[in-house]
């Protein structure tokens, strides 16, 4: 490692933050682009499972709230792609790599939403898991990304509220409604345990070394479990992992080891809904190409 890179590393490791125009090592820039681009892709792909339910939402109020959440998520994608563009990769190139399957998006968006129960579990628990990661990004060494994360976290907290309200309405409803929530939780528990990634120690995780992330994967998962296991159980729901318990001595959660091979397969495009989602994204990209043309023509 050359002196300049070492100085940069020392700087970010001691809490220093970097702006767009500052010098940065190529490896740092490449890792930022890949990570932030995947975040943008995830926001954009994340609206598809929810979009399926706009027309089927049970009340007008829910329809409006769901539509607002979807608008938020697409807005996050726009903000995040702007950050990637300033790092050197244009938005068009990001979208090309997304629809061609070259770039990744988050594991939880490769699964179908079977019932309204899934919509509630996504808004409540998937967004809760996401907010743990995103809060840790508020301290990201790349300042423009950390700044937009403030707004993103703030909006995600709305989504958790919306999700919790959906879940509580169903839990306090008919036995069939309760069952829909339990079934959705059974389906989503594995993806949720995959969500924060494998147990790579922080010092070996390049994302932590460069202080792009400020937390080890396992610490994020522990934080999620700390916050939500009791909230799930107090509703009378059963978490589908008989080994899940808190070790009093270490103050850490113990759980059945997730199948990491499966996670790898899902995020490389072999999830149950991966192909369908990408096909839809390709189609909608063609469908709305005229909007871009019209906007640019009017501006010219």
């Amino acid at each position: 490692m050359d002196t300049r890179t070492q100085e940069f590393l020392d700087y970010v490791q001691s809490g220093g933050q970097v702006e767009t125009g500052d010098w940065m090592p190529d490896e740092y820039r490449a890792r930022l682009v890949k990570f932030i681009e995947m975040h943008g892709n995830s926001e954009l792909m994340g609206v598809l499972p929810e979009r399926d339910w706009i027309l089927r939402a049970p009340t007008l109020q829910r329809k409006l709230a769901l539509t607002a959440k979807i608008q938020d998520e697409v807005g996050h994608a726009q903000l995040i792609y702007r950050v990637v563009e300033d790092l050197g990769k244009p938005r068009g190139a990001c979208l090309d790599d997304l629809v061609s399957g070259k770039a990744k998006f988050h594991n939880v968006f490769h699964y179908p939403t079977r019932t309204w129960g899934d919509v509630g579990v996504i808004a409540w628990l998937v967004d809760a898991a996401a907010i743990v990661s995103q809060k840790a990004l508020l301290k990201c060494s790349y300042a423009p990304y950390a700044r937009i994360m403030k707004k993103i976290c703030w909006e995600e907290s709305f989504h958790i509220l919306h999700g919790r309200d959906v879940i509580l309405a169903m839990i306090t409803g008919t036995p069939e409604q309760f069952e829909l929530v339990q079934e959705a939780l059974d389906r989503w528990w594995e993806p949720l345990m995959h969500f924060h990634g494998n147990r790579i120690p922080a010092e070996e995780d390049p994302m932590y070394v460069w202080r792009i992330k400020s937390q080890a994967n396992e610490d994020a998962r522990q934080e999620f479990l700390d916050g939500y296991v009791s909230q799930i159980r107090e509703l009378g729901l059963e978490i589908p992992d008989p080994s899940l318990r808190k070790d009093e001595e270490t103050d850490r959660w113990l759980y059945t080891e997730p199948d990491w091979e499966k996670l790898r397969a899902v995020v490389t495009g072999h999830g149950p809904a991966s192909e369908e989602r990408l096909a839809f994204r390709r189609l909608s990209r063609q469908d709305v190409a005229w909007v871009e043309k019209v906007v640019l023509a009017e501006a010219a």
Partner: protein
Amino acid sequence: MIYEVFRQERKGQPLQHAGTVTAPNERFAEIYAREQYGRRQESVALWLVPRDAVSEIDEFPDEFDLKYRRVDGYSIKARLREAREKAGTLELAPEGDR
């Protein structure tokens, strides 16, 4: 074109850099910024500045070492001690301030 967006959260507070929007012209930039940074009533004002219009200064060389403009340019402590000794009041000063 890229516009830098600054937002003010409440009246009287400074406008702070919030992020950027890409738009083909100012009219679209206003619409996008309003959607992105104001639709939940989180701002009372937004400033949009084309990135090209921003002049940045990020180096502040001090070739002549103008110490008298900086806090480290004044050695109060040693002088104060000397003055107190001269006046015979050194013992009266608090322990941490000698």
